[in-house]
């Protein structure tokens, strides 16, 4: 198991390196003079030249690449044009917000997705199954931003139960920052009011973000369960008289979990991407909103920064999924 983990860690580093190179190339495919782009519309020729030298844009591509990678290794992601602050700093303050949102959404997605998938497979073709299937198919098709707007319209404006947007009311002080996660920090601080407030702010965006993921997990889990339930060893288990639920929850689910795990990994990636949309709709102060506002202002470095950070988390989760595979499937353990 240990060599397995080490190999995966090495792969992670390799992938990040590859992605860094990829982002470098993306930055450089823009048509036109990069120095002029950075300088903006109103820059004079002198300013453009200064910028060109300062950013090293007059050097050959390969040198630029090595400078870029070197900077990355030291954690230097450049400066934002709009705020003139270090991108790394701005990212750091926004990461916990996105992570908290994503973890909540992921949790909802996995718990409900797997449970509903199993139940739907067991009670196949019942009205429950039909309803769940319609729900899951719609869940993947529904545009996240549209759903978010509609939910705001109903729950916040029409019913007034929940706040419209943001992460925490401006009038209150957020919990003491220990983990950066408001839900946890408020409990650590012992303040139930802050906990409920944080919850009321996070619940709508978390539900909207989780829906496509939930739907996807549900579908895959359901179809895998159906397939496994027809397989020979389940037939044998039933022939030996094992009880229905033991067979389903342990024997069948264990087998069905493997492809489901793969989907969870993939969906996590799509969810990270969707934060761009959901954070925009709900004004959630995370990485996604940061990337969008920077992109709209042609502020490029923050966009790259967000890309790298989000990719890192995605690759990390995939590595964890791989390890989970090996834990579930003993065949992989002895092979690697």
């Amino acid at each position, binding site marked *: 198991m240990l060599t397995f983990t080490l190999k995966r860690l090495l792969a992670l580093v390799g992938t990040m390196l590859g992605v860094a190179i990829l982002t470098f190339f993306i930055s450089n495919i823009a048509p036109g003079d990069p120095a002029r782009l950075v300088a903006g519309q109103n820059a004079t020729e002198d300013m453009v030249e200064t910028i060109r030298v300062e950013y090293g844009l007059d050097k050959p591509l390969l040198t630029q690449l090595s400078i870029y990678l070197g900077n990355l290794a030291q954690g230097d992601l450049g400066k934002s044009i709009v705020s003139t602050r270090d991108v790394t700093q701005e990212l750091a303050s926004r990461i916990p917000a996105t992570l908290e949102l994503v973890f909540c959404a992921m949790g909802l997605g996995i718990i409900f997705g797997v449970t509903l998938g199993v139940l739907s497979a067991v009670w196949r073709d019942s009205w429950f199954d039909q309803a769940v299937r319609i729900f899951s198919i719609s869940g993947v098709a529904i545009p996240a931003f549209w759903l978010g707007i509609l939910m705001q319209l109903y729950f916040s404006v029409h019913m007034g139960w929940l706040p419209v947007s943001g992460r925490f009311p401006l009038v209150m002080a957020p919990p003491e920052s220990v983990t950066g996660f408001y839900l946890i920090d408020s409990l650590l601080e012992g303040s139930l009011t802050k906990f409920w407030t944080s919850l009321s702010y996070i619940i709508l965006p978390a539900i909207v973000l989780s829906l496509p993921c939930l739907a996807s997990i549900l579908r895959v889990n359901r179809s895998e369960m159906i397939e496994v339930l027809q397989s020979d060893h389940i037939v044998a288990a039933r022939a*030996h*008289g094992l009880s*229905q639920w033991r067979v389903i929850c342990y024997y069948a689910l264990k*087998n069905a979990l493997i492809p489901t795990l793969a989907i969870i990994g993939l969906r996590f990636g799509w969810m990270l991407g969707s934060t761009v949309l959901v954070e925009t709709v709900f004004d959630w102060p995370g990485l996604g909103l940061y990337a969008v506002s920077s992109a709209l202002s042609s502020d490029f470095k923050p966009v790259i920064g967000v890309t790298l950070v989000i990719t890192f988390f995605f690759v990390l989760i995939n590595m964890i999924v791989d390890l989970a595979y090996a834990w579930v499937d*003993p065949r992989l353990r002895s092979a690697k």
Partner: protein
Amino acid sequence: MTSILDVQDFSLDIDTFDGTLHVLRDISLTLERGDKFGIVGESGSGKSVLVRTMLGIGPSNARHVGGTMSFDGIDLTCLDAKGWRKVRGVRISMIFQDPMTYLNPLVAIGTQISDVIAAHRKAAGEDTGSKAERLKVAASLLTQVDIPDPERVLKQYAFQLSGGMRQRVLISMALAGQPDILIADEPTTALDVTVQAQVLDLINELAERLNLTVIFISHDIGAVATVATRCAVMRQGEIVEQGDILDVLSAPKHSYTRELLDAIPEFGSSEQAAETGAASEAPTDGPILSIKDLSKQFDIGGGKTVDAVKNVSFDVQQNEILGIVGESGSGKSTIARMVLRLIEPTNGNIIFQDRDVTAFSPAEMLAARKDMQMVFQNPHSALDGRHSIGDAIGEPLRLNTSISRYEREKRVDELLDIVQLPQLFKYRYPHELSGGQKQRVCIARSIALNPKLLVLDEPTSALDVSVQAKVLDFLKELQSEMNLTYLFISHDLAVVRALCDRCIVMRKGEIVENGMTEDIFRNPNQAYTQALIESGRKTSKDAAMQAAHAG
């Protein structure tokens, strides 16, 4: 005293896209306690559906349209889940064909057995006990089926055990609840010959010791006969003949039973051998194929290699049928593929028609392939499902000749005639053909270019017994009509004895015996060959006849 199993006029239907399928039609049979009953039938006979329905695990879309099925007074056709839990594994138990797919790959053996024990105890209303205690019971069950070192096996997973061991584990799970009836659904078909004999012995011994009633299902009459005292022959959902095994084997009443018995190659007979012996004359020219010191090593990763074939040398004379016999892992299939260089040999030479094939460039190899062709084992996957039969047979012509499309069609028609299939088939697709028909198409494909040598890799193993016989007869005719030389690979000793002039016995990559088929079968030199022949004989029809006579 009520019979333990009573089936009267039982009928089952399944609705398919092409209409209603009468899977079981008016099945009637009765079993008394302690009976050993065999059911013989080919694929599609309904034998598996029948026994699975007895356990309530038949096809889910089947409709019960008539008749009764009762076990010890309990009506099996209207049991609910609770009722089944008292029957499955506890009163009626089943062991299956391929132990690999019937054991959960992700759960340890010990857990699986202990769960079965717990389920039985729960169904009987007892306390399930602790897992540790159940594992002890599991260990004793494994000892009962002659598994050495049961503690270690309990911790292992299915993929770490050999085929024979897996089957024993399944048997122990089936016996965990101390059932009255044991149903064995083709339990030995997926196993090697030597292991088959061991498992059959085990089943017999357990049946004696535990006073079991056994239902044994197989397409292999010989295997059925080693266990059963009475038997039924099924065909397309009906029982065509039923009775004591002695009567059915020696004096079959139904024409289908006779057909089935005739189709099985005689194991102990020497009549056919004399025929083939006469056919092969003394070779005048040199051998058409000469294998010298052929070896193949496979790299299985982690720096380890496995020697599939070790320094094998033999000759194949013109117009003879040379058989290569061995169990799985003997290297026989690898040799077949190396002859055509579908797999590259690690060492050694292959001399075909006095030219060294191993040294050929790809272009020369392409030309050489016209003269040697291969017929593959599994006709179901040897044909591309997306191509019509006409395309499949025409493919070698398209690749190697430049004849016009019209001429190609004519040649395809000719070939279909030679293999005795209607010309209309060239418009059909593989999934519409039966196994035997598909294999004929493969044969037509292989003779399209008029080869001199035909390598046949277990060409009939995947086919039903009655079809096998027809295909083998056809192959024999073909060989003499077209002056072909055959290299015939098989694990089935009876087939080899019936068809091949000379044969080679292989074991773990090495040649163990090489000589005229008859000589080897009557006077084997090596102990391994002896063991192989013994196991084969044990499960053959002849042994069954003798045993039935004696009993």
